[in-house]
């Protein structure tokens, strides 16, 4: 089972925090901080797995993480999950984000937190993997967007809500996330299932 999914940037600012185990808020914050410190001091080219001691109250848990440019994606899992499988799952998650946001960057995660949650929701629910087929995930997200659009068109949503981000004067826009060697232009990108 996946106990938590954490995404934070190189400075430890959380960008996505999702716990699948009931923990008090202070404990959640504490875990995010400690995980960040554990992961930060590791070189980029060593093992992607590490034991996290009693962080989750048992010795059975591992952190499996990947580092993409400015962001760390960390999954905390118990021994019932395959380490390499989770590593691929992280990749699928990032590739999916990339597809949904077109060249995803840290800012997308900040300003579209709800969307990111919805995308994640199509992959993992209650700490269990729901879908690993990227086409399927993207199709679900697209269906959602369509529904939103349809409702948006009918609703009296104020027009000022439209196109918000781009016009705002933003300081220091982070670089795009480099998602390694995947090629997004390739149609019918293979999925992990």
């Amino acid at each position, binding site marked *: 089972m996946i106990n938590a999914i954490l995404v934070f940037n190189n400075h430890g600012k*959380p960008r996505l925090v*999702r716990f699948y185990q*009931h923990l008090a*808020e202070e404990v959640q914050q504490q875990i*995010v901080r400690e995980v960040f410190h554990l992961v930060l001091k590791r*070189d980029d*080219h*060593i*093992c*992607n*797995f*590490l*034991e996290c001691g009693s962080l989750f109250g048992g*010795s059975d848990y591992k952190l499996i993480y990947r580092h993409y440019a400015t962001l760390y994606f960390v999954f905390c899992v118990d021994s*019932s999950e395959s*380490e*390499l*499988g989770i*590593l*691929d799952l992280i990749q699928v998650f990032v590739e999916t984000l990339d*597809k*949904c946001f077109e060249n995803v960057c840290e800012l*997308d995660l900040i*300003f*579209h*937190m*709800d969307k990111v*949650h*919805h*995308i994640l929701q199509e992959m993992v*629910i*209650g700490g*269990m*993997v*729901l*879908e690993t087929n990227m086409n*399927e995930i993207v199709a*679900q*997200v*697209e269906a*959602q967007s369509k529904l*939103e*659009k349809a*409702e948006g068109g009918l609703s*009296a*949503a*104020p027009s*000022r*809500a*439209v*196109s*918000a*981000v781009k016009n*705002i004067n*933003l300081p220091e826009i982070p670089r795009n996330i480099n998602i*390694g060697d995947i090629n997004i232009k390739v149609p019918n990108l*293979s*999925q*992990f*299932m």
Partner: protein
Amino acid sequence: MPAVSKGDGMRGLAVFISDIRNCKSKEAEIKRINKELANIRSKFKGDKALDGYSKKKYVCKLLFIFLLGHDIDFGHMEAVNLLSSNRYTEKQIGYLFISVLVNSNSELIRLINNAIKNDLASRNPTFMGLALHCIANVGSREMAEAFAGEIPKILVAGDTMDSVKQSAALCLLRLYRTSPDLVPMGDWTSRVVHLLNDQHLGVVTAATSLITTLAQKNPEEFKTSVSLAVSRLSRIVTSASTDLQDYTYYFVPAPWLSVKLLRLLQCYPPPEDPAVRGRLTECLETILNKAQEPPKSKKVQHSNAKNAVLFEAISLIIHHDSEPNLLVRACNQLGQFLQHRETNLRYLALESMCTLASSEFSHEAVKTHIETVINALKTERDVSVRQRAVDLLYAMCDRSNAQQIVAEMLNYLETADYSIREEIVLKVAILAEKYAVDYTWYVDTILNLIRIAGDYVSEEVWYRVIQIVINRDDVQGYAAKTVFEALQAPACHENLVKVGGYILGEFGNLIAGDPRSSPLIQFNLLHSKFHLCSVPTRALLLSTYIKFVNLFPEIKTTIQDVLRSDSQLKNADVELQQRAVEYLRLSTIASTDILATVLEEMPPFPERESSILAKLKKKKGPGTVTDLEEIKKERSSDMNGSAEPASVNASAVSTPSPSADLLGLGAAPLTNSAPPPSSSGSLLVDVFSDSASAVAPLAPGSDDNFARFVCKNNGVLFENQLLQIGLKSEFRQNLGRMFIFYGNKTSTQFLTFTPTVICSDDLQSSLNLQTKPVDPTVDGGAQVQQVVNIECVSDFMEAPILNIQFRYGGTFQNLSVKLPITLNKFFQPTEMSSQDFFQRWKQLSNPKQEVQNIFKAKHPMDAEITKAKIIGFGSALLEEVDPNPANFVGAGIIHTKTTQIGCLLRLEPNLQAQMYRLTLRTSKEAVSQRLCELLSEQF
């Protein structure tokens, strides 16, 4: 087109986020957030009804604030309102808020459940999906109560959409994990198994996860899944990668599903049906073969996916542990990975090999990789990988390579990361003991261990070395000589002083012949360390000195001078002072014969499981110390343990000779804090013993507590510094149920925690008790519960005994308390008129039916309290029955399985004399007797 268009965000939200990001300081950020929280609060509270859009915007802001680590204590109600919106976007954000910020507020849970119920019934797959995701994410007990019956129906219904089926399967899995008792097994289970054949691989994946978890608890029920899983796996593995289209990930067909299927198969032994078994073997061989093929892609994702399946296949092969051919191939494959350039693969290979080492078929094959593993220990840059290498060395160790492995581990210890030192110390100590052919090697190893990593050598380790030296005549002289030499070092670790002090105190005479280690030199050497040591060590050294008085009469006066010095006799520490005074006195007045008897050499310790092993298990969690031999050894030592300990315990407790504990390590803080009543005089024996399957005598104060429970059902039965035992019980007619709560008050795990309810032979025939075993480990601060089902067959006198045994730190704890199951618990109160009462009273006039007791009041004579006690006792309190209003009368029926016994009671207080007269009349003499006894104790 991107699936998420960036333009349609919420401007207010974006502005807020930008503001936060522009904040120059933490204070500014907090200020901005507080302003926003105030704004949102006022908007939510305001008179103006908010439209869905605004609600959504504010909820999003709250989520963002929560992400930044701030407490969100409102907005839940607004989120719940969004759930019942008909608009998808609003509903969606409502569900998101609920599942991120779950609140166990029961009022809200009911509302949330209501909304979920509506969405589940809506037959709109999108809404159903949202509702199911929410249940899976929250997974609370209330939700399980509401939906555990409903979800299996959705899961197996023919017309359910695939995506909903997927969600339903995982939803059910989550509920089963949180509240297994609420998920009913039934017809649906067989239909779930058939989902393994589903067209849609997403459904198969979700179903496999569900079945795996269910099968672990109900293997029989899901047995048919084995053949289905094998055939599914076979179709995936043998297909060309293009066959599965969408389900192929970087040229690997459905790796995630393959992994899950292989996990499912690990819930079962190898299939019995030869056809299925053959097909599975074929699959596993194919997977192993594919590993040797050249990669179809250079991308790391390709090799990851391929190896994920491979490692899982190897796990299954190890789990089955039945095909030598496959095991050896697996081992060779892992051997290749040990040298792979990918750190991840080296890590996983070390980890898998660890389990492989415990298989008898492949143990030898694993051993051939010893050099690679040792090399990994020396060269790996990553501590996680080095840790795995240590684990593997430990697992592959046997008599043939123990010396090499122990030496390498000792080497590594000098530079090892602090985080894993203690564990390595334990492992070295265990291996050295287990594979010692030559005990001089063992002694050297442990002393080295103390020299290199003294701070990480726990008490268990040095207790153990002493135990072994005491038990083995052949090593005692060598040990004395070695510790003597080791103590010569200018700076030596305190643990070495302890071991040295103990061993020289026992066996210093064996080396006293050598003028370089004459008695006086030995004494001076030890005493030179005395002032640098902590109190417990000094206490131990004082005991060594008195042992020296016996061993070496020639230095008696020197020792007496030391004991007599002010720094000893007037030491601020009570323990040290007492030892000095007593030892000085002992050495002065006792004759040589008496001294020799009192200070006799310690008797050998009974052989039993090493306390170090227990410690390692505690550290790593049960089940992680896997070694076949170890398990066998443990079993046999368990048998040893139960065969002999009674005598050990008896000798330790009853022997008046203080020799058993003179050198007692009594000052060790751990053992002192626990008051096991049976063994307070023999701490040393206790430290080393798993002993005492013998039931401890009743804990002090247990009787008082017992009496308190006669008139009440709930409360704390027993408490000391380690353990609290609470009770809750209910009784109806002749049946009852008692919940016993064991609370670990310490921060350390209790191990082998075994509570047992014991009934004497007499009691067994009249009282039926059924208990379920509890988990043998109780975490620090945790509470475990045990249920006792009670049936009263016939009336009874005694109470059952609750005996609790466990290990805390290195010490064995054993205590017993009376369990307050008393005859009066099966009382059913009976109301009756004055006339009826006296009529019955007269009917029970046979002298054997009446029991009377006149006794002095132990508590203030308060009428209200007395009334409460009589009611608590179980009988009805009959008002206006007795002509004297100061008297109390009661009536009731005792229910047993065989009979019912009517009981009448009368209590007459005499305030002046502070006395009571209690009269019981029942149809059975023994019952009158017992009830009278029980009730007399209450006033």
